[in-house]
């Protein structure tokens, strides 16, 4: 890694988690440096989404530590809310607020959490909506938009908080094929702009093209990680080789 001396934006130390008898995360250790784009891949049920969700405590952990800029993630209350406000999260199902317009979706966080003035929040929201290409839809409701547009709004909603890092939990998995690229393009743009990103995805092209590092998970463990070209061309472990073979042609 290139940024060794700097405190990682996100760090997971010996993270373990069970669902009943199922050991979903096993001793996860991971550091994400500022500006790094980390792609997490692996078969379904490998724990990659769960890992992503532990970073802002949408999932709790049984043991270990989650550190944000070297500080432990608070476990509740305003401290936790404040920490979450600094991390963006984009979900598979978009999760836009159904009763709010697109513009209101994007201004909700800045107004409610950052106590920004409405006019300021709206101006900034319009800027972001233009950046993700849905400015014309600002006064529509989420249900009136296509999946791809909704996901781009969700990204704008996260960006409106000026996050230190963004997590993407399978952001294109619920999209029709023709809409996947419009979302990926926005993400590529973000990555180029220097955003620190954790991306759980099945989009191998995106992983190869954009990521700084690929993490391969299986059975709740990090099995292998490395630079994208190295990982995709010369996977070291059998599990990773099998996985890559199984998705070829998709």
């Amino acid at each position, binding site marked *: 890694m290139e940024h060794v001396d700097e405190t990682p934006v996100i760090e997971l130390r010996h993270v373990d988690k069970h*669902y*009943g008898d*199922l050991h*979903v995360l096993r001793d996860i250790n991971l550091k994400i440096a500022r500006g790094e784009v980390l792609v997490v891949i692996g078969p*379904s*049920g490998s*724990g990659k*989404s*769960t890992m992503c969700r532990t970073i802002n*405590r949408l999932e*709790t952990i049984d043991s270990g530590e989650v550190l944000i800029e070297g500080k432990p993630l*608070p*476990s*509740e*209350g305003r401290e*936790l809310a404040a920490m979450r406000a600094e991390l963006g999260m984009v979900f*598979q199902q978009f999760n836009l607020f159904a009763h709010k317009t697109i513009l209101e979706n994007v201004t909700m966080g800045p107004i409610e959490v950052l106590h920004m003035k409405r006019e300021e929040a709206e101006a900034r929201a319009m800027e972001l909506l233009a950046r993700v290409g849905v400015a014309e839809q600002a006064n529509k409701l989420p249900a009136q938009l296509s999946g791809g547009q909704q996901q781009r709004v969700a990204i704008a909603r996260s960006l409106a908080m000026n996050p230190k890092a963004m997590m993407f*939990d*399978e952001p294109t998995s619920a999209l029709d094929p023709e809409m996947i690229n419009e979302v990926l393009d926005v993400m590529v743009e973000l990555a180029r702009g220097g955003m620190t990103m954790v991306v759980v995805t099945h989009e191998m092209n995106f992983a190869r093209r954009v990521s700084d590092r690929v993490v391969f998970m299986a059975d709740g463990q990090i099995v292998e990680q490395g630079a994208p070209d190295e990982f995709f061309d010369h996977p070291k472990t059998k599990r990773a080789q099998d996985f890559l073979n199984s998705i070829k042609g998709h």
Partner: protein
Amino acid sequence: MSNHAKPLSIRDALYEQPGPRTRRRVAIGTAITAVLVIVGIGLIIRQFYITGQLAPRYWTFLAQPTTWRFLLQGFRGTISVALAAGVIALVLGAVLMLGRTSGIKPVAAVCRVVTDFFRGVPSLLLIYFFFLVVPQYGIRLSSFWMITLPVALAASGVLAEVLRAGVNAVPRGQVEAALSLGMRPGRIMMKIVLPQAIRFVIPSLISQLVVVVKDTTLAYVVSYPDLMQNARVLITNYDALVSMYFTVAVVYILVNFAINKLSALVAERLGVKIIR
């Protein structure tokens, strides 16, 4: 999201996994409210006690088989009215629904007015109609029909709407496909739409039975011996008003609770929603 252990109900999703502080607060709150609830229950029991309602003479009749035999007789009356009214309401509801969706304007309009009328009028008013008004025209009905018919009419309006919701839930494309095969609209309704619609609404029909059972308790107005009416008879015999009414109320609650549970169970089995 495949590794979520169990799908969260929204009731639980409102709360996060608690941290230590929250856990402590919840524990304290739980303890306090538990005490409050227990004290509340205690106060109610105390009120029963100091007013003498817990005296054995008010409750011992519940141990006598004759009491239950008589109540069971009444319960049989309740069941016969409920079932008869349910069947009539279903037939009438189906007729009203078919009329309303027939596409024949005057028929549809009449069925709509009739449906809305029966949905918008209290069962008690319909009971008084059969009890007080109908005899004025020289028509003599038995007490069974004087309770069964109004309960059935009141339910028919609701059932017509439930059935219509079921018909609307059948994908439009199937009707179009059938039309393109040259089937006539009437046949399409009978052969394709209705069978599926009924599947959609079975749980809702079951849950509507609760409304019918509740309405049957008005049978005492026409002196038909249902559970409620027989309970009233027992009260005059035993002079045990509070205990008797509580017992009967509990029976009704349990019966209706069971019907609702059955409805929910069937809904889950069939994978359909309950329309209310």
